């Protein structure tokens, strides 16, 4: 079977789970698509998963209320072994990227991280992914019978519903004791669409001038467009914005339909996080800024004059 570990948030399947199901359908293996739902109070998530999978396995346990890499990897490896899974798909968020290596080691499997395409070639999994700060596209072949893959968010279109809802089965798990005590949580709630799932991202760099300038220009435009907000490392280092908004080598990688770069010069480290965006719009006062080399549409000018004019135009 192909085992997919559901990614979820707030009682809903994440978009990435739909994308993993599509990848499983496209891979070209005649194997049932099984979605594993782990958590506590996840009945509604399992019902949602049943609409797109051939089979849904559910572990609804209080022990799984909060994510832990050791618990998650133990659960996934156990289910993969019992179901003789040849391919395990895990979401490309922080958690998935963190527990998937443990699953691969437990299963003595190959690990392909952040794949943008996977296929079966004569029985082995071949994947495409980016490397060298996303400047290189590479093709790799897994040389092991079992393969663990994390999928880059946005690489596949979300799967559509199946004609019939799949059966759900409860699973028994042998879980290890939790060793990592989480002593505090701080979640960043913005009310905006999440950065890695957004179809449109408005990002700002030092060129917006100040933290207040960022709020007025970048957040102002993002809210007008219903877009997510991104920032460069310089802006995060200056304390204007939280790290969760950082796009680039040391932050998040995004691939939206439209990426607005406001006052961003376009350092390699930033380009590695957004260079694959379908359409890039850049506004910067320096006509020689590297960002214009990757921009589809660019305005050379003062962001403080141009961005408010764009917001005004969009409102009218």
């Amino acid at each position, binding site marked *: 079977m192909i085992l997919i570990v559901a990614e979820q948030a707030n009682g809903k399947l994440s978009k990435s789970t739909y994308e993993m199901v599509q990848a499983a359908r496209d891979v070209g293996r005649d194997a049932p698509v099984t979605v594993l739902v782990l958590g506590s109070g996840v009945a509604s998530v399992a019902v949602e998963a049943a609409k797109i999978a051939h089979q849904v396995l559910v572990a609804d346990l209080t022990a799984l209320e909060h994510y832990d890499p050791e618990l998650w990897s133990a659960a996934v490896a156990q289910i993969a072994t019992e179901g003789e899974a040849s391919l395990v798909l895990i979401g490309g968020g922080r958690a998935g990227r963190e527990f998937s290596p443990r699953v691969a080691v437990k299963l003595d499997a190959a690990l392909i991280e952040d794949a943008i395409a996977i296929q079966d070639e004569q029985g082995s999994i071949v994947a495409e992914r980016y490397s060298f700060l996303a400047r290189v596209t590479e093709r790799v072949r897994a040389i092991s019978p079992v393969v663990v893959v994390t999928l880059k968010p946005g690489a596949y279109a979300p799967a559509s519903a199946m004609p019939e809802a799949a059966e759900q089965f409860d699973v028994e798990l042998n879980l290890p004791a939790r060793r990592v005590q989480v*002593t505090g949580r701080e979640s960043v709630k913005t009310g905006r669409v999440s950065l890695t799932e957004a179809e449109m991202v408005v990002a700002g760099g030092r060129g917006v001038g100040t933290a207040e300038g960022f709020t007025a220009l970048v957040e102002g435009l993002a809210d007008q467009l219903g877009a997510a907000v991104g920032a460069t490392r310089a802006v995060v280092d200056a304390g204007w914005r939280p790290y969760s908004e950082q796009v680039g080598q040391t932050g998040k990688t995004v691939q939206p339909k439209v990426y607005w770069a406001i006052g961003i010069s376009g350092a390699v480290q930033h380009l590695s996080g957004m260079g694959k965006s379908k359409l890039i719009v850049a506004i910067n006062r320096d006509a020689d800024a590297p960002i214009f080399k990757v921009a589809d549409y660019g305005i050379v000018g003062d962001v403080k004059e141009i961005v408010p004019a764009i917001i005004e135009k969009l409102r009218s």
Partner: protein
Amino acid sequence: MRILSVIRQVLDAEENVRIADDRVDLASSKLVIDSMDEYGVEEALRLRERLPEVEVIVMAVGPERTEAALRTALALGADRAILVETSEALDVIAVSSVVAQVAQREQVDLVLCGGQQADWDCQGLGAAVAERLHWPQATWTTQLAIDGTAVTGKHDVDDGTETFAFALPAVITTQQGLNEPRYPTLPNIMKAKKKELKREPLDGFSATPRLKLLHAEVQVKERLRVMIDGKKDPAASAAQLVEVLRKEARVLA
């Protein structure tokens, strides 16, 4: 306490990527210690400054040239270095096996490595090493304190941050924000030349490759590069942009 800091030698981000024979060609390119790994080296040194009797070992798995990166780490202050030498481009899972074997042999209490390295763009090394050693892990750490065997710290998760606590031995992955890495000084560069740098062949370790690289290329996406002058009449340029995004690109309603 003994700390193992794992580094990779990667292409300097400012350098262009060159391809030869379907592979990235690093010959004659400027190579550096991966910046995320560097936060791990720095943290190990700071822990040594704060805690009694800490030894810092820095290690890498890579070709002969990796020696230069290890020498730099020694110049930063690491006590000794181990290079497991191979010309093969091993995947994360294979490298994790070598690191775990070194960690066991050297009886280390803490393994530090970067959250992601700039050559393979992979995040899995720390977690895979932790799994092989059956140790707990914390990834993307931005604050770290150790008292006896008690580890506490703060790290980034999908939707924010968490503070955590667990006991050594453990694996920690490092990133920007954890510290400000130092630069090597000339006297320390001189001193580093006398420090132990042990080169060992990969043959001495078990490391089964799990991935085979078939092909690598630089795909440059063709961009429209339509430029609008916004200096003379900002409002007109804004209107023009909105117009093309609506009518030509059709990405705005």
